[in-house]
């Protein structure tokens, strides 16, 4: 779907956030970008989203550059409009492309249903828990049926129980939606549980250091599988080697 080709990004002030970063993403991939904070994960995600431009290198899209709606983005905070209900927040991407409410509502309700929020359509963000707000944010990203879903540490601010539930539910959403997911995290456990491909990044300058493939089943029970613990060990060892 997308090839990131020797991309570099230097911020004003001389911080080299990315150097010679190359990564290929295929249809239905689930990639975790894993690395310590400050290694350029968010920068890479923003470049892919088109929110920032690389100083060197290219992004090559199979089948043409993406149009609005092809890419969904989930931030660390839910970033909902506090004055809008859950359904109006999910309606936003469709509204911005000129769809009417009546046209959009079936899609909006389907997206809310898919993230387990049926019945909360008219709730305001204030009335929802952190986990539910994140679910609204994911529904908003899914409502345009994106080819690529970018997620930047979306569960980092949630408590462990909520996080486990959302991780498991995200796997179900991903299997149903059939889109490519690039998931930024600094948690080895999260990367091992979720991703098919775990891409390790190291800082100063941000670079891709290694990639590890996962053969775990993308289901909730995987957390109890000894193979999961083995994968966590393998990633930890690779990360230690990359940072050494």
């Amino acid at each position, binding site marked *: 779907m997308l090839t990131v080709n020797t991309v570099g990004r230097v911020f004003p002030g001389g911080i080299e956030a990315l150097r010679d970063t190359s990564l290929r993403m295929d249809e239905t991939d689930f990639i975790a970008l894993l690395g310590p904070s400050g290694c350029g994960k968010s920068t890479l995600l*923003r470049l892919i*989203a*088109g*929110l920032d431009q690389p100083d060197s290198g290219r992004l090559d899209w199979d089948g043409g550059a993406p*149009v*609005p*709606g092809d*890419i969904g*983005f989930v*931030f660390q*905070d839910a*970033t909902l*409009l*506090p*004055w809008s*209900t859950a359904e109006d927040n999910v309606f*936003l*991407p469709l*509204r*911005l*492309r000129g769809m009417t409410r009546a046209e959009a509502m079936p899609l909006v309700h389907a997206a809310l249903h898919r993230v387990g929020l049926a019945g909360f359509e008219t709730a*305001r963000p*204030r*009335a929802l828990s952190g986990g539910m707000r994140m679910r609204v944010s994911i529904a908003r990203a899914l409502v*345009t049926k994106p080819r690529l879903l970018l997620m930047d540490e979306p569960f980092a601010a949630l408590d462990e129980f909520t996080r486990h539930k959302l991780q498991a539910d995200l796997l179900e959403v991903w299997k149903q939606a059939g889109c490519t997911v690039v998931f930024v995290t600094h948690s080895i456990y999260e990367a091992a549980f979720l991703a098919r491909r775990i891409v390790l990044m190291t800082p100063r300058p941000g670079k891709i250091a290694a990639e590890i493939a996962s053969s775990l089943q993308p289901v909730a029970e995987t957390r109890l599988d000894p193979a999961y613990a083995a994968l966590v060990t393998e990633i930890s060892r690779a990360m230690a080697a990359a940072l050494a």
Partner: protein
Amino acid sequence: MKWAPALFGLLALALWQAAVWIEHVPVYVLPGPLAIVGAFAADPVGLLTALASTLLVTFAALFVAAVLGGAMAVAMSASRLAQAAIQPWAVALQVTPLPAIAPLIIIWVGDPFVALVVCATIVAFFPLFANTASGLASAPPELDDLFRLYGARRWQTMALLRLPAALPYFLSGLRISGGLALVGAVVAELVAGSGGFASGLAYRILEASFRLEMPRMFAALVLLAIAGIVLNFGLGAVGRMILRRRGVA
């Protein structure tokens, strides 16, 4: 606890009245609370009509300041050129003391009512303008990114993100400016004197002080203070109600 301010106020009034009686303070130096109430009771219609006139100027000025301040903040948020052009003038307007320019304005603007409204607007303008401007810029940058990701037009970002984000800021600006508009109206009336509109409460205060009718002067002052308090709390309540209905307060 709830009654503490009222009790304290009553106690202070009682002490004031007692002091005036015991010390035999002449009424033209300091009238007691009873004399002030008496002065109000002697001409309630006259004083309340004067209050209405001052409030008319206040609300007209508040309305104009809200429209102008809001519109200029939006223009500034929409264009860097507008920002560069407007900002220094807004600040200049804010730091200019009203009593210094009020006489000029009263001379230039022939109509006394309009002149008073212009003066009060100048005082009320800045909080509305500055609050709205910071409210328009208050949305988190991720939401800006989100709107860009979905190819939002500038007017869409303004209508669906910036304006709603600015509303609480605008409303708190309105509350501050309400009190300032009242002060501006009074100052302008005082400067204008008999050459002005000559019907507001400030003019009644001037008139009473010339005639050494101290109780009447105090009655007018008390009315003014009450009007200011009611205005402040009223605008605060209206703001809270609007925000509650939008689910953000």
